[in-house]
């Protein structure tokens, strides 16, 4: 499946000041949880791969 990005059509981005402490904390928590999800997925995939085939 090809996913093409639209052309970015803005003259500026941001300019609304810094992140609040709450926003920063929430982002950190989110990134941490995403990392944990990825690691779990990777472990599941690795474990599945290492299982040997058993023929009856």
């Amino acid at each position, binding site marked *: 499946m*090809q996913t093409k*990005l639209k*052309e*970015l059509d803005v003259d500026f981005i*941001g*300019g609304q000041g810094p992140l609040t402490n709450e926003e920063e904390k929430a982002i950190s928590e*989110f990134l941490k949880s995403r990392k944990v999800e990825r690691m779990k997925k990777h472990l599941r995939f690795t474990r599945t791969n290492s299982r040997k085939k058993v023929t009856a």
Partner: protein
Amino acid sequence: MKKNRQIGLDFEIDQLTNSIVNVVSGDSFPTDITIVTVEDLKSVTKKNGWQFLWKTEFKYPERDVYKLTIVNNPTVIQGLLSLEIKADHVYMHLVESAPFNIGKNKIYAGVPGNLVAFACKLSFQRGHEGNLSFLSKSQLVQHYIDSLGAFHFGGRVMIIETNAALKLINKYFPLCKLN
């Protein structure tokens, strides 16, 4: 022929230019992104058409301000980027195209995209896996989702995660080999 990438992304690089494009002629020009100097910012004023106070941005010690220029033409600033390296990602305070690159009569297209892609690249280089955040006005949220692959985290916060960052880097820095 499509190349199979280890990361499983499947997308087309539609043009092998990293650069910015002259809107009238369609010519593309390779670009440099470098740290700005006090000298550079002398002409970056509201009087000259810039919307934001870049000398103020420059003064914050925790922020880095970068300029985008065309190769071999380092004195003409095409756009500016102010960012801050956080503990686990890069936060983009501000990106602005030069006054002659805004609106329907812009000279060069692709300036903000180049700068965002650079910020993503920096995030990888600092060990933050390409993760980037910035603040958005509500009316632009969907546009950032469509054009940057950003994710609306909630409120005014947008996040560009690893896969989206890789796409942007491959679009704007195609000679950069990423797995």
